[in-house]
């Protein structure tokens, strides 16, 4: 496994140790990114350290409460000299700025699967978990998600070199203007938003079709898994908490018994412990759910790349069609045959042909148009080919990343289950001993 190779992390990656916690597992993933990655993460350590509530006026001049996140940049140890480590550079960003950054990246690098942001609103919650955006647990999980996002971008071979991204991390003021100055919003194609099948591509690229199908399947199954997980969590919570009632009743019962009293009382305490243990267990599991959610949102990014390719392919086909049509027209004009119906052609046939001069001017206009058309097609062709090449490079990279991350996630899930079982064994062994003393 890659983990054993990674060097620079402070938290040691552990292998062969079933007591690895999910934090360690996450560090393993980060270490992977560092290794894979590139200049940016080798120079600096990025973290989203804190979250704070602010109030201010929004765009329609109304008071609102929102959360800001503190981004910390530390120069990597290798960059600093021995002695006291330098203080980190910090700045505050709110969620909407992250969104803006991501939109910029989506438009600027259409062939890249852009890492997703953590969910805007809590979904797939089990009932004890708050769906409130201002809930501290939700804010905390979002903080982690935002940090993850930055690390993913910073470790991406292409995205990490982007200037706007660099400024996002380093310049608090003026960043918004800088992004808008790039004029990326003009490139946003509204057609991408619509999911309709209006764009019918004549000869679709089979690889992209397969990818889109896979992405849809993954989306469906992970959504299903998250839903089931939420329900299972709910039920498990119920089971553990009801055992807490044993604690109370045993305690009361022990008061009226002589020989049985002590055993009952202490057994009751263990029942209370058992009931309380579920909170930590499910909190850890939330982490696993977040890992699944990241890939759920990734499917949207994958789909988006497929759509962009579709659009490109469509435009290429349109341009080719257009060119073919013009060539046809020219041929007809030259040979005098009408294969394609045109009003002008008909009227000239009916009302007498045009003059030689008119014909010649039309011909040259058409030839010009054909020239332009040929260039356009060539351009689109090149664009398309470049897109496909770059996209597939990223897709392969993504697939490898996904396989590794999700395998790690499944392993960490198994570790969580093991931990839960060990706790259960402990509690019930203790309880059994108490019952034996009854």
């Amino acid at each position, binding site marked *: 496994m890659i983990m054993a190779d990674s060097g620079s992390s402070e938290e040691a990656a552990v292998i062969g140790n079933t007591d690895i916690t999910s934090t360690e597992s996450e560090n393993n993933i980060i270490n992977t990114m560092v290794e894979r990655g590139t200049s940016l993460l080798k120079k600096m350590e990025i973290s989203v350290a804190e979250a704070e509530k602010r109030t201010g006026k929004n765009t329609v001049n109304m008071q609102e409460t929102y959360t800001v996140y503190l981004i910390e940049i530390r120069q990597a140890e290798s960059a600093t000299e021995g002695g006291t480590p330098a203080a980190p550079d910090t700045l505050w960003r709110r969620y909407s700025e992250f969104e803006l950054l991501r939109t910029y990246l989506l438009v600027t690098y259409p062939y890249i699967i852009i890492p997703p942001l953590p969910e805007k609103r809590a979904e797939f919650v089990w009932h004890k978990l708050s769906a409130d955006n201002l809930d501290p647990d939700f804010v905390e999980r979002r903080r982690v998600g935002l940090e993850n996002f930055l690390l993913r971008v910073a470790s991406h071979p292409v995205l990490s070199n982007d200037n706007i991204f660099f400024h996002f991390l380093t310049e608090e003021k003026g960043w918004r203007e800088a992004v808008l100055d790039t004029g990326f919003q003009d490139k946003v194609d509204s057609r991408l938003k619509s999911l309709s099948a209006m764009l019918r591509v004549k000869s679709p690229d089979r690889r992209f079709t397969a990818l889109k199908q896979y992405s849809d399947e993954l989306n469906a199954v992970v959504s299903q898994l998250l839903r089931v997980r939420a*329900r299972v969590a709910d*039920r498990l919570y119920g*089971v553990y908490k009801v055992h807490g009632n044993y604690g109370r009743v045993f305690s009361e019962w022990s008061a009226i018994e002589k020989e049985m009293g002590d055993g009952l009382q202490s057994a009751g305490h263990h029942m209370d412990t058992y009931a309380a243990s579920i909170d930590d267990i499910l909190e850890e599991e939330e982490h696993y759910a977040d890992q699944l959610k990241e890939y759920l949102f990734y499917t949207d990014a994958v789909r988006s790349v497929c759509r962009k390719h579709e659009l490109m392919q469509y435009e290429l086909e349109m341009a080719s069609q257009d060119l073919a049509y013009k060539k046809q027209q020219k041929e007809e004009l030259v040979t005098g045959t009408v294969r394609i119906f045109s009003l002008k052609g008909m009227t000239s046939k009916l009302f007498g042909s045009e003059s030689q001069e008119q014909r010649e001017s039309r011909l040259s206009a058409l030839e010009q148009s054909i020239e332009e058309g040929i260039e356009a097609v060539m351009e689109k062709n090149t664009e398309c080919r470049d897109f496909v090449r770059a996209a597939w490079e990223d897709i392969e990279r993504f697939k490898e990343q996904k396989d590794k991350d999700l395998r790690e996630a499944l392993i960490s899930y198994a570790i969580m289950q093991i931990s839960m079982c060990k706790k259960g*064994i402990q509690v019930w062994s203790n309880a059994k001993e108490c019952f034996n003393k009854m």
Partner: protein
Amino acid sequence: MCACGTFILTAPGGSAARLGGRVDRVRSVGSASVWAEKFLVMSGHTVPADISGHMLDLDEDEDLEVFSKNTSLTDEGPVPNSPSSMVNQYRLEDDEEQQDANAKDLFISVEDPESHITAIETYIMYRVATKTTRSDFDSSEFEVRRRYQDFLWLRSKLEESHPTLIVHPLPEKFVMKGMVERFNDDFIETRRKALQRFLSRISEHPVLSHSQHFKVFLTAQDLAPHKKQGSGFLSRMGETMRAVANSVRGVKNRPEEFDVLQEYVENFSNKISSVDKVTQRIIKEQREYLDELRQYSSTYSQWAESEENLSEPLKGVASCAERCCNETEEQIQHLSEVLVPALHEYVLCTETLKAVMRRRDNIQAEFEVKSDTLASRKSDLDALQDEVDELAERMEKSNSALQLDWSRWRNTMRADLKAAFVSSAEKNVEYYEKCLAVWESFLVSQRGESISQRD
């Protein structure tokens, strides 16, 4: 379930030596043997003087005194060699939790439920099979068929004859809420087990197991003629009416130990009922959890179909989830079969205890009424005095009987519930151990595979 075991009766010579051993656990049983003997003696015969003191004496030396006191007290012979007292002596050595084959001389099983359909009704008949070495039984093996009504008859007869003894409850007459059909398999099986437990408890009771009604129940091919026998029925009826009338007055001076007992019964009733409810709730939650858990397995399998490299670990997780589902199912079943019935029986016991307390109070009330009458009457003193003496004696007997049986019941309750709780805790440990093994083997497979991938 005590069905068929071979009973080996050790020679009586060994008994005295063993007697000196463990005392604390079997105080009540040892003394009960004395008392059982006395009871048999007392029914219909003159009462030996000065016995009440012994019966209430519950100190450590009592077991030794059992032997010596017996010889002077009974008319029947020197050493109590009846199977019941020998049985009790052998119980001294028993592990409290183990039903040692050597100690029982009566093995009863309730098996083979069969449906009987008549024009009027449908009912179930059970085979009640008895194996015994008791000399007062004509044979060593018996087999009869009985229906629930017959069990009800037996129990009411036992309660009638021994109003202040604690007779183990029967399973409920009516269908509990939530069950659809009276004769579905689970219900029949649960009832069968409870009926067997009932008979088993009676057979272990030092007094009740020697009841004539019990013997008839176990041996008579046709119970109907015995059921009709209610010679004392009308007079008992009158007695009950009188008792009810008296109890309206209430008891004037209930001895403190019975006040304590009363309070305990009320508290215990609340607590055991709560524990029962909590347990039922746990089972309900577990079942709902299990339903959701099943979906995990199928979802992971479905995902595995879309993947290549991930397919293997996903299938692994699906398999783990499925195996955990099976373990959960087993755990729920264990809870339903072990803890729930045990708790439920003691919930039913509380009703019995309350009834016993009431009957004891009635007996005291009757005595008090007559006593007061005696105090105020001038004539017929002799006749009244006899009546009062009789009632006083009856009251004393009943109180002692209750005290002893109460002690016995407490121990039995403790043993029963302890066993049930220990078993449940053990099962839970086992459950988690099995699930742990499942996930650990998955982990090993993943770690092993990724190492080889790396190489």
